[in-house]
């Protein structure tokens, strides 16, 4: 892994090593029993990672309230386990692993609850009812919402590993090597999971006519290479 990493579109490019350096410093502070100072420094990590963590959790959960809880819990868990953090690992990957596991646990709990509870109306801010004030027209907003709902439904139908692969690698733009570190799998295994996930996604979305409605804003020559 390089010392810098490109964040997904919309986020600024920043060195990955910042969080790792901060984490190592916090680890030393905790070892010296300077807990208040460690918590203060950990706030800087929160500032750096919070948005990305919320976005990843939102891909899994789609409920803002649950995303808030999961992100808070993941940060606290990371702080509590910082003494066991290995400095040769990257903090971002270590923390993402904690976050993804927390999201998967939350999804399991939700599935268990769903067996006993009647489905209620979606809460405010849920994916199906997102505001669309920036859309050009109500019809376009409705179509965009429908497309998003279909895509989210298709992602939800993927197995956990394939979902993690497609979220981290394709949605978040993480390199396969980093995703393999986060998931604890070989890089080639991650590629296989990603390929199968996207193939399934295409199958699900093709059945609903999602792919045919995709605008062709591609010049056709900008092929990506491994």
């Amino acid at each position, binding site marked *: 892994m390089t010392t810098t990493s490109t964040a*997904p579109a919309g986020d600024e490019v920043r060195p990955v090593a910042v969080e790792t350096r901060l984490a190592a410093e916090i680890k030393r502070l905790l070892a010296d029993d300077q807990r208040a100072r460690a918590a203060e420094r950990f706030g800087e990590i929160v500032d750096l990672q919070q*948005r990305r963590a919320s976005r990843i959790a939102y891909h899994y959960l789609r409920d803002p309230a649950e995303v808030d809880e999961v992100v808070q819990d993941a940060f606290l868990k990371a702080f*509590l386990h910082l003494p066991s953090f290995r400095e040769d690992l990257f903090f971002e990957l270590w923390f993402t692993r904690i976050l993804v596991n927390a999201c998967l646990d939350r999804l399991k709990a939700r599935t268990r609850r769903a067996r006993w509870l009647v489905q209620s109306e979606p809460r405010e801010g849920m994916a199906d009812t997102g505001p*669309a004030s920036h859309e050009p027209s109500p019809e376009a907003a409705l179509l965009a919402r429908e*497309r*998003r709902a279909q895509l989210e439904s298709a992602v939800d139908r993927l197995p956990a590993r394939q979902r993690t692969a497609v979220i981290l690698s394709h*949605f978040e733009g993480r390199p396969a090597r980093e995703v393999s570190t986060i998931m604890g799998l070989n890089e080639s295994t991650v590629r296989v999971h990603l390929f199968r996930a996207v193939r399934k996604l295409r199958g699900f979305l093709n059945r609903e006519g999602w792919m045919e409605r995709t605008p062709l804003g591609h010049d*056709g020559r900008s*092929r990506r*290479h491994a």
Partner: protein
Amino acid sequence: MAMNARRWFQPWTSMPARWAEHRHLSDDRVLALALSTSTARRSDRTAERHLDACPRCERRYAQMAAQLDSLPAAASANFDQVFTPARLQTQRARIRRRLDILVGTAPAARLLDFPFAGRSLPRVRFLTNRWVPAAVAATLLLGITAGQLIHLHPFDADAGRTGSVQTGDADGQDGATSVASQELTSAPDSNPVVTNLDMTGTVELPPLPGDDAGPRTLDSFARLMRDEEFLDDLDLALTSAQVSELASIDALTPRVRDLTINIH
């Protein structure tokens, strides 16, 4: 000669590669190209060459790449609208608050009195109220113990008939040397059968009705019972010959009645 042969075979040996270049790419291969997940560089190069030469596959590739590129944008389309800067700020404040509570720099949340905030509720004094569960437990224990004792030694209201056990010499002298005695409880409607036997001595039984000889020993009682049993068997043998159903069997066996008569 060899040169001519190589020249003759060359088109045939290179045909599979050329066919591969001219075959249309499968969906999976186009998808792998779009995802950049193909690990076989040679097949990638072959596919690249085919894409350069085949407008149809090039168009499929462009469409698939556009579809894949639209996925991340569609997946996080409303993230910015849901997670506004204000919401993220609130979340950040909560995280810091929980961190402060964790390290002890901020007081933990306190419980408000309910229902009257101005008047404190009486505090439960667990130490002084421990005797209540302790008394309940002790009572329960006593009850269980008493129940077990009653079950093992049932109380008999009609236990008026008692027998005294007398131990003596093994040669059967009735009550000659009484070592110890104890009261025995017997069932109200049962015969005076001893429930506790002494293996070394004799057991003194209450006198039978109309018997003035005093208490009998167990040995004499057993002898008496054996005599009675023998007489009963004898009566049965004498009377069973009159049963018609058993006549055929009786004809095959020695006649007990005759034997009895002969004995007498």
